[in-house]
C-alpha cells in the first residue's frame, strides 16, 4: 500500500463520520426552523437548547448509509483520488459514477499542466475527448496563453514572439474579448526584471494552477460530473442554516468546520 493510499483511506473513514454528522445537524436545524416558522407569532422569545438536548436530538436522526456512500464517492471521484475510490467501491459495493481510469487520466493531465508541459496536456486531452478543446475557445486560448507564459519563463523570447504571432493573434481576431489577456501576457516581455513587472503574477505557479483547474473543470463537465464535490455545497448549507437558526434560538454551533466540534450553547 502506498502512503498516498493510506492517507486516502484515512480520509474516507473520517469523511463517513464527518458527512454523517453534518447531514444530521442540517436536518435538525431545518426541522426546527420549519417548526418555528409555523408558530412565529406565539414564540417571540429566543429558545435555548442545551448541548445535551441537542446531542440527544442528533442521536435520533438516521441517515441512509447508501446516500452517505454516494457523497463520499462523489468527493473521491471529483477530487481525483482514484485508488481510494477504487478501494471504496470494493468495500461499499457502490459503482463509481465514472470509469476510474478517467480519474487517473484527468489527474494526469492536471499534473502535466502544473509542471508546465502544455503541449503534452493538449495531446492527452485530445486523446481523451477531441470535442473538449474544439468546442471551448476560451479554454483553448487560456492553454495557449499558458504556453506563451512558459516560453517567457524559460526566456525563449524569439519563440515566444513567434508563438504569439502565429497562435495567439488569430484567437484575438476571432474573439476580441481575448485581447486584454493577450496584451497583459505580452507585457511580460517589456520588463527585464520580472519582479518589477506589474503582471508578474502570470509567472507564478498559481497561474498554472488556474489553467489546470479550468481544464480539469472542462473535463469534468464533458463527463457530466459536478465541478466541485457536493461536500462544498453541504458546508455552505450548514453555515447558512446555522445562521438562520441563530436568529431564533441558541444552540450548539459548529464553528470549526475541520473538526466539526459542537461549541457549548451561548446563554
Amino acid at each position: 500500500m502506498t502512503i498516498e493510499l493510506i492517507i486516502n483511506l484515512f480520509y474516507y473513514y473520517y469523511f463517513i463520520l464527518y458527512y454523517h454528522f453534518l447531514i444530521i445537524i442540517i436536518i435538525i436545524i431545518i426541522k426546527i426552523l420549519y417548526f418555528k416558522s409555523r408558530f412565529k407569532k406565539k414564540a417571540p422569545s429566543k429558545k435555548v437548547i442545551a448541548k445535551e438536548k441537542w446531542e440527544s436530538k442528533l442521536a435520533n436522526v438516521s441517515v441512509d448509509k447508501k446516500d452517505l456512500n454516494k457523497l463520499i464517492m462523489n468527493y473521491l471521484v471529483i477530487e481525483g483520488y482514484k485508488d481510494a475510490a477504487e478501494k471504496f467501491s470494493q468495500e461499499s459495493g457502490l459503482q463509481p459514477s465514472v470509469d476510474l481510469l478517467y480519474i487517473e487520466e484527468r489527474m494526469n493531465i492536471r499534473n502535466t499542466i502544473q509542471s508546465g508541459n502544455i503541449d503534452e496536456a493538449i495531446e492527452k486531452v485530445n486523446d481523451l475527448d477531441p470535442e473538449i478543446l474544439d468546442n471551448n475557445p476560451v479554454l483553448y486560448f487560456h492553454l495557449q496563453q499558458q504556453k506563451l507564459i512558459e516560453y517567457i519563463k524559460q526566456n525563449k523570447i524569439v519563440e515566444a514572439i513567434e508563438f504569439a504571432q502565429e497562435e495567439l493573434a488569430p484567437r484575438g481576431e476571432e474573439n476580441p474579448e481575448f485581447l486584454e489577456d493577450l496584451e497583459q501576457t505580452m507585457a511580460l516581455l517589456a520588463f527585464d526584471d520580472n519582479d518589477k513587472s506589474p503582471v508578474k503574477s502570470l509567472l507564478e505557479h498559481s497561474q498554472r494552477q488556474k489553467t489546470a483547474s479550468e481544464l480539469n473543470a472542462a473535463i469534468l463537465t464533458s463527463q457530466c460530473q459536478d465541478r466541485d464535490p457536493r461536500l462544498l455545497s453541504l458546508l455552505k448549507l450548514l453555515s447558512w442554516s446555522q445562521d438562520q437558526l441563530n436568529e431564533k434560538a441558541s444552540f450548539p454551533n459548529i464553528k470549526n468546520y475541520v473538526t466539526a466540534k459542537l461549541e457549548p450553547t451561548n446563554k
Partner: protein
Amino acid sequence: MLAGHEEKYKQAVNMLSSGNQEEQIKAIRFIKNSIIGNITKKKLYMNLNISPILIKILSEDTYSNDMKIQSSVIIGSIANGNEKNIKKLVEDGAIKPLLDTCNTEDPKLYESAARALKSLLESDKTTHEILFEEKYLENIISHLKPCDFNLYGNIAMRNNPYRISEVTAQLISKISISPEEQNKIVQHETIPLLLNLITSKYDFYPKVQEAALEALSCICKGNKDICMNVLEAPLEDESKSTSKRLLKLVHSKRPEMKLLSITCLTNIFRSGITNEELKKEVLLIVLPVLIKLLNPPSSSTSLQSTQSFSSQERAPMIFSYLIAEDKDLQKAAMEGDAISKLANIIKMTKTSDDDNNYVNYIPTNSSLHNERLRESSLFAVASICAYEEEYRKNVIETKILPIIVSSMYHPNYGIRMAACHCTKSLSRSVKTLRTSLVDSGVINPLLKLLSDPDIQVQTVACAALCNVVLDFSPMKKFVLENDGVPRLVSLVHSMDSNLRLNAIWALKNIVFNAESNIKDQIIKELGWEQLYLLINDEELDIQEQAINLLRNLACTNEYDIEETINGLGETRIINIFENKLQWGIQNTNMINPTPKVDNIIIQTIWSLVNIYAGNEKHKKLLITDNILNSLFQLITHKNEIIRLAVIWCCINLTNPDDVGTPERKKKLISLQFPNAFKMLKNDPKIDVRNKVREVLKHFEEPSEIKSYNSLLMPLNRSNESLLSDLSLHNNNQYDDEDDEDEDEDLFDEYLPDSNY
C-alpha cells in the same frame, strides 16, 4: 506572413504518405493536435488539400485502425461548425468511406467515424440519402444498444460504451427530417432502443440521455403515428410511461436536459394527437419550466461552454412552436410573463448597429450568439401575439418595435424573416396599424424586403404587407406611391406558390373598397390575362384569392362592374362562373371535400352577387341556365355562407325597382327557386332565416311590398362587408369564420422548425 511556419505543416502532410508507419502516425497526431480548437490551422490544412489524403487513409485497408481513428477525428474537427469546410469534405467524398468505416468491430474507430459523420451532417446542405442504404442504417442503429465496458488498452484506445450510443443517437437526430426518413428509421427497433437510453438506468450519463431525447424529438416531429408509438411503448423504468419519464426529466437540474425533454413533449403535443392529460401537463408543467429557460444572454460569458449557449438560443424557438396554435397556452404564457422575458432578451441583443441599419456590420463569435437569440426570440414574440389584441398591446408596451424595424435591415436572413413575422402578427390589430406601426416606419423596410434575395423572407414580408395595405391603414397610400404595386405584381409571377399566394392576397386587399383609379392602376400592372390565369391556377388557395380579387374589382359601382366584364371579356367571364360553380358542386359531392372547395364556391357566388348589383345588361349576361342551375343546387348547401350568398344573388336579381325584374323573377320561379327558398325558413342560422324571408317577399305581389323594398334597396348595394371581402386576420372587428381558417393555413407555413 507565416511562410516559414507553413513549411512544417506542409512537411507533416507529406509525411502522411511516407512509407514509414511510425512517421505516419507521428505526423497525423501532430496534425490532429494542431487543428483541434484552432480555426486558422483548420483553414491552413484545408488549403494544403489535406482532405483527399484523409479520405484515402479511411478507404484503404493498409492503414492501421489508429491511423483511421486519427483521420476521422481530424475530419470531424475540421468540419466542426464550418460550412465551407463541410462542403469541401463532402465534395471530396468523405461520407461513404466514413460510413464503411462505421462497419468496423473496433468501438473506438466506430465512435470517431460516427462523430465525423455527425459533424458533416451538421450542415443541412449535406445530403444524407446514402445513410438510408440498408447495410449502413441497420448497423448504425444497432449501436444505440450500449455494450459492456471493454477495459483494454490505454486511455486513447479505451472506449466508453455510452459515448457510442450517444454519438449514434446524435447521428440519428441529423437524418430524421422528412416523414419518410422518420418512418424508415423506426423500422429498426429504434424507438425501444432510444427509450431505454432515457430511463433512470443512465442517470449517471446525462449526455447519452440528452442525445436520445434529441433523437426521439426528431423522429416524433410532425409524425403522429410515431408519437403514438413512443407514448404507448413499454418503459423499463420506475416512471412506467414515456410521458411520465419525460416530465420527470423536465425537472432535471441540467438546463440542456430540461430543454430537450421539453422539446420532445412539445413535438409530441404538436403532432396532432389528442390527449387531454398531455395538454394539462404541458400547460401546468412544461410551459412554466420553458418560460424559466427564456433567459437573456448573461454578461459573464467567459466560462460558458457552447452547449448552454445553444440551449439559450433554442429555448425561444421551442417556446414559439409550443404555443403557436393554442390560445390557452398563449394565455398562460402571457400570464407567465413570457412577453417581457422575451423582450428583455431582444433588448440585450441591441447594439449600435441597430441605429445605423447594419451598414458596416461585421459578425464576430459573440455576435453570432446574439443573432441566433434575437431571431428565435422574435419568432416567439410573433407566436405569442398572433391572435390576441391584448398581447399585441403588451408587446408594443415593451418598446421593442424599433428593434423589430431595424432587424429588417439585418444581414442575417433569419432575423429579417423573424422581424417580418412579428410585424405580421402585430399588424393584425387595427389599433397598432393606425398608430404604433405607422410611427415605427416599418413600411419602408417591409416594401424593400419584397425584393429580398431570400424567397422565404419575401414570402413573409408579403404576408405582413397583406395586413398593412388594408383600407383604413395610412400605410396603404405609401405602398401605392412607392411602387408597391409593380413589386407585388412581379411576385405574382413567382414560381413559388406560397409567394404567389401572398402576393395575390395583398393585391386583393389593396383593391378592397378602393377607388376606381386604384383598381385601374392595379389591373393595368397585373393584366386581365394574368388574372384569368390565376383564377385557374393549379393551387386552390391561389384560385380562391384570385376570385376574391375579381369580387373586389367588380364592386361598388357600375363603372367597376363594366370594366371587369369588358376586361375579362363576356365569354370568358361566363366561363369562369359556369366552370367554377360546376367544379364546386362536383367536388362537394366527393367523399372528402376540403374547406378549400367551399371557399372557392363562396368567393365565386359573392362575385356574382356583386355583378348582379350592376345594371340590367350585367345581370342578363350572367343568368345563363348553367349558372342558375348551379345556384339552385347550392341553396341547400351545408355551408351557411354559401346558402346566404345564393339568397343574396336572388335578392339582387329581384329588386322590385330594377329594370327587367319581372322577367328574371319569372325565370327564377320557373326554376322553382321560391319553393326551394321556403325550405330555408327554418334554417338553423338566423342570418339565413332573415335573408330568406326578404327574398321570399320579393317573390310576393310587387304592389304590396314596393314601398318597403325601396327602403331596403340601397342597403343591398352598399353593404360592403358582405359584398367585398376584407382579410385582416383574426381581428375581432372583422372576425369572419372562413377567413380565420385561411389565415391559420397561412400562418402555419411559417412556423419555425425546432430542429433549426
